[in-house]
């Protein structure tokens, strides 16, 4: 596959690989076969390599935007979140996959807000053995429920992870993902003045499996 890297990312990747020495993975080269040219990129992953991760952590409601009040607090408590992510590498750095995540938080009167998102995901992974640093963007659909109210909305979730490779298969680390949910009402069922843009942050611990 002929993949084009953005030049800055390519430079950064090469630099990280240079500092970190050899990368690891299914196609890690034996030490004896390490390239002598330190500027040469080492292919840690290749097309078809996959990863599956389980993520659990905190859900931080940040603010709502919209309506006559402009930017306001969410009135929500600190919540919980969890997700399962699957991705397949296109090459050493780029991966395409899916994330299914859920989150909850409570209102001042203990009403529970539930959010479930299903998002395709594209990632760019920086390698610096024994660390991987994926940055990613997810965009998909979100299901929001509050008591009997229910709404499907788009969701955009940019984020980044910091992963430590325990061995060839397992990696553990930390994720930070921003949730932007434009909850737009057209007036057909609910008045359009009820439109709000939700902003949340999830911070999770991650266990990731390469296969």
């Amino acid at each position, binding site marked *: 596959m002929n993949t084009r890297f953005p030049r800055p990312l390519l430079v950064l990747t090469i630099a990280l690989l240079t500092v970190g020495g050899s990368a690891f993975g299914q196609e890690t080269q034996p030490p004896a076969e390490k390239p002598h040219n330190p500027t040469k990129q080492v292919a840690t992953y290749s097309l078809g390599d996959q990863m599956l991760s389980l993520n659990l952590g905190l859900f931080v409601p940040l603010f709502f935007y919209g309506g006559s009040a402009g930017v306001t607090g969410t009135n929500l408590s600190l919540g919980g979140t969890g997700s399962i992510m699957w991705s397949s590498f296109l090459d050493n750095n780029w991966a395409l996959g899916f994330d299914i995540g859920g989150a909850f938080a409570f209102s001042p009167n203990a009403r529970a807000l539930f959010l479930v998102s299903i998002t395709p995901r594209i990632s760019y992974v920086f390698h610096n053995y024994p660390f991987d640093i994926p940055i990613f963007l997810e965009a998909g*659909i979100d299901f929001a429920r509050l008591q009997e109210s229910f*709404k499907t909305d788009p969701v955009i979730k940019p984020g980044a992870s910091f992963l430590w490779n325990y061995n060839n298969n397992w990696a553990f680390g930390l994720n930070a993902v921003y949730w932007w949910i434009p909850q737009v009402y057209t007036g057909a069922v609910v008045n359009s003045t009820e439109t709000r843009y939700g902003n949340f942050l999830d911070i999770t611990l991650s266990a990731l499996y390469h296969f």
Partner: protein
Amino acid sequence: MKLRTAAALSILVLAGIIGTSCTQGTLGIFASLQRETKILDRGLENGLTPTGMAVSGNGTTGYYYLDAVSAYVRPRNPASGVTWARIAPPANGMLVQDHGIQVLDTQTKVLATYYTGTGSSLSSAVYYRTADSSTDAGSWMSTGLASNGSTILSIGPLFYIPGDPIATAVYACVQTAAYNYVLYYSTNGTSFAPLAATTDSSTPYIDATTNGTYDYFITASQVLTLTGLATASSATPTDAAPGTGNAYTNLGGIWGDAGGTFSGTGDLYMTANNSILRSTDGGSHWSVVVASHAAPSGGANLIFNKIAETEAGSYKALLIGSTTSGYWVLTPGASDVTVADPSSNYQASDLRTSAITMLFVDLSAGDNATPPVSPTGTDLVFAGGNAVGLWESYYTGNIPTFVQD
């Protein structure tokens, strides 16, 4: 293959975003959360089911009385306290559910129907006491109206109609035989007598009002028009059938616009299953104002029950209770109910998803309140729900703030 799968799933989700617009509910989810504030709880047991209220005196000396199996009392002036105190029953009994307590203000009397026993040994009686804040059992006195196993089998709701043009009285629904109920009345607050008018009904009376000219009592299927203490007529409304399958078999509440504050002097409003009806000719004919309204959770239509009116400043509305989803608002001239108090924390209350068991409005509460709780002229709306306690809110015409008693 995996990439094709990923791409296909991506397209599927994106198509879902574009093609799916599923909205359920009446308010924005994020917007509702944004407006929410912590509901103040004043300490009355939250699992109570309030089924009736009454008020005595004026803003300085008066009291509220609550029927929630037991009787409760608290000052009408919030500056004197907002804590309810339980009134001990006269004979270890329980208040009649629904309109179990009333006040005859001209006589400074509280009247209450208590029953004791169970099943075939059930007995009931109406008691009275001075309308004050005392809570002892010994202050209850017998009105003499009590079940006797023969001519009076049981006694049910009590009715007091503010501005009653027929008589300043408390009325009692009395069962005189199987499937036969009549009305008694008391003008002195200490004894009852049967109405001279024929008031026989096969089912109990459940609500009463006036349109300024006559009194109206309803059962589940009939409207009794009381034109005098000795004259009455009863009829089953037959016109303006409120929709297929919604025959007049489930009347819930009635309210009369005696002062013309809502739509027109003398208009009557009545709930009938899924519908809200209006009569502009004293109950001779009824028309449909609201044919039906879907429940917010989807599925069946709302079944309406209680009616009360609030007229805080320029804001006038009928509050319409439902059997599943709190109360709703009908504004003058509207042909459908709307969400109640969308900007208040009523939306976060248990009441909103409960069966409404009581609606009571103190139209002069604003005169009693101590600023800044409420400016003069505001109403104090009390609402009770099934096992969710008593709630109250000052209506100022803006955003009401709900408090759980």
